């Protein structure tokens, strides 16, 4: 079953074409990798797929439903969550508070007039996520005061906490310390179970381990797609993207 699809999507910024005729289908419960050179249009594609940008041509379908001109919150309400390449956080809030907020977005039972921070269930949910990310001791820190790496992890946690069936991740490993990569990888693998995940990543070893399918973008177009081995073997991909890392 297709969870997310785009057909003939084009995205122009003035004269510059960031995406040209991109058609992709992402099936339920699979883990996709999205790679490509800098400026290939990966983040732009994520933006289009999450309602952050309206494509200049083509359409996006979420769970079989066309999302023409829908905005971010409509995508989110339809069960799509995402992380950001440069952490996008609530700097003045606390760490736990941020996660509670994200969790609350999905819980319809929550009355609009109750204090979510006084809701034990929400707080427990947030703490569980913090535990998984190894950040429990920072629950009360101010987000803006976290070191870069921790902010990246929190960004990831916010994307996953609402149990959205579709999650788009934009370079989740960037800025994660060498020592924390293994743990983060495990956490993502765990959290991704049963969901559709599309992950942009430049860390090839991690990506090859996590992704079942890989899509390669270059110059705003799909250059190749296939399994890790197929992609690694592709000469065009080696030239444009991997270099000696193949």
């Amino acid at each position, binding site marked *: 079953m297709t969870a997310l699809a785009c057909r003939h999507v084009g995205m122009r910024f003035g004269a510059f074409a960031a995406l040209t005729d991109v058609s992709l289908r992402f099936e339920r419960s699979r883990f996709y990798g999205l790679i490509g050179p*800098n*400026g290939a249009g990966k983040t732009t594609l994520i933006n289009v797929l999450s309602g952050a940008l309206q494509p200049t041509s083509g359409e996006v379908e979420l769970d079989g439903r066309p999302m023409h001109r829908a905005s971010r919150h409509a995508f989110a309400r339809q069960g799509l969550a995402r992380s950001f*390449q440069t952490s996008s956080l609530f700097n003045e809030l606390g760490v736990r508070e941020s996660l509670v907020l994200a969790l609350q977005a999905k819980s319809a039972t929550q009355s609009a007039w109750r204090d979510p921070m006084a809701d034990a269930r929400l707080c427990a949910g947030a703490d569980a996520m913090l535990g998984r990310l190894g950040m429990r001791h920072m629950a009360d820190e101010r987000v803006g005061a976290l070191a870069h790496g*921790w902010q990246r992890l929190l960004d990831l946690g916010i994307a996953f906490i609402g149990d959205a069936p579709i999650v788009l991740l934009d370079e989740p490993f960037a*800025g994660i310390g*060498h020592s924390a990569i293994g743990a983060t990888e495990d956490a993502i693998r765990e959290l991704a179970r049963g969901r559709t995940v599309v992950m942009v990543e430049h860390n090839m070893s991690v990506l090859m381990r996590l992704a079942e399918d890989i899509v390669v973008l270059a110059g705003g177009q799909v250059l190749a797609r296939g399994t890790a081995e197929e992609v690694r073997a592709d000469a065009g991909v080696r030239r444009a*993207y991997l270099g000696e890392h193949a």
Partner: protein
Amino acid sequence: MNTLEASATRAIDPGGTAAAAEGAEVLRIEGLRAGYGAGDIVQGASLALAAGGALAVVGRNGVGKTTLLRAIAGQLPMTAGRRLLGGQDATHAESFELSRRGLAYIPADRQVFKTLSVRENLLLGAYAHGRGEWTKEAVIDRLFPRLGERYGTLAGSLSGGEQQMLTIARGLLSNPKVLLLDEPTEGLAPVMVDVFVQAMQRIRDSGVAMMLVEQNLAVPRKVATRYLVMDAGEVVWSGDAADLAGDAALVEKYLLL
């Protein structure tokens, strides 16, 4: 070799670096302390950089690497300690003076001027400095042709990797004697990392001193001549790359799981 040593060697490969001959000392930091208001984060760091040397600063997330770099660059006030640049005291110099005296800072969070074009960002990088090896043309031709393609675009609409390139390019345009780099390869595609590493090797060999914070340990493996390990705001170890790789316990404690 046991597994621990093996992984330590994998992390810190002493063989990869063509350790260049180091020249005169250009930057010295003594007992630096700095923080964000309540209590110091970095507690008494000391280090020295020589021309042609490359010092890699490593440590887990949140140990204070960025804080150390920012304090050296004058972006964060030092609460204690001394800073000498080219042998002369520069403890109280403001950040613009430090830059004019040859110290360039390339921040981790990019900090491009988003509402300015690529061209204007580069212009500002070169504005206060005389011409040298690195000019706008040289940076674009030799390092990042992609920036040339996006020359008139606002920096804020560049892709993550492109912004990273712009940050590096902008820093190089001051033709610095000391280069402070905070996670410069974050967000760069693998081919670009190669280009960058080669450029850094050349820059280092041309006699520039550099200090490099990196999470992608493949990069310092190819560039660094010396290592500095941080933990909880303190320098817990510093020395040659080869020595670090040999000290498996140390690597495990501070760098691995």
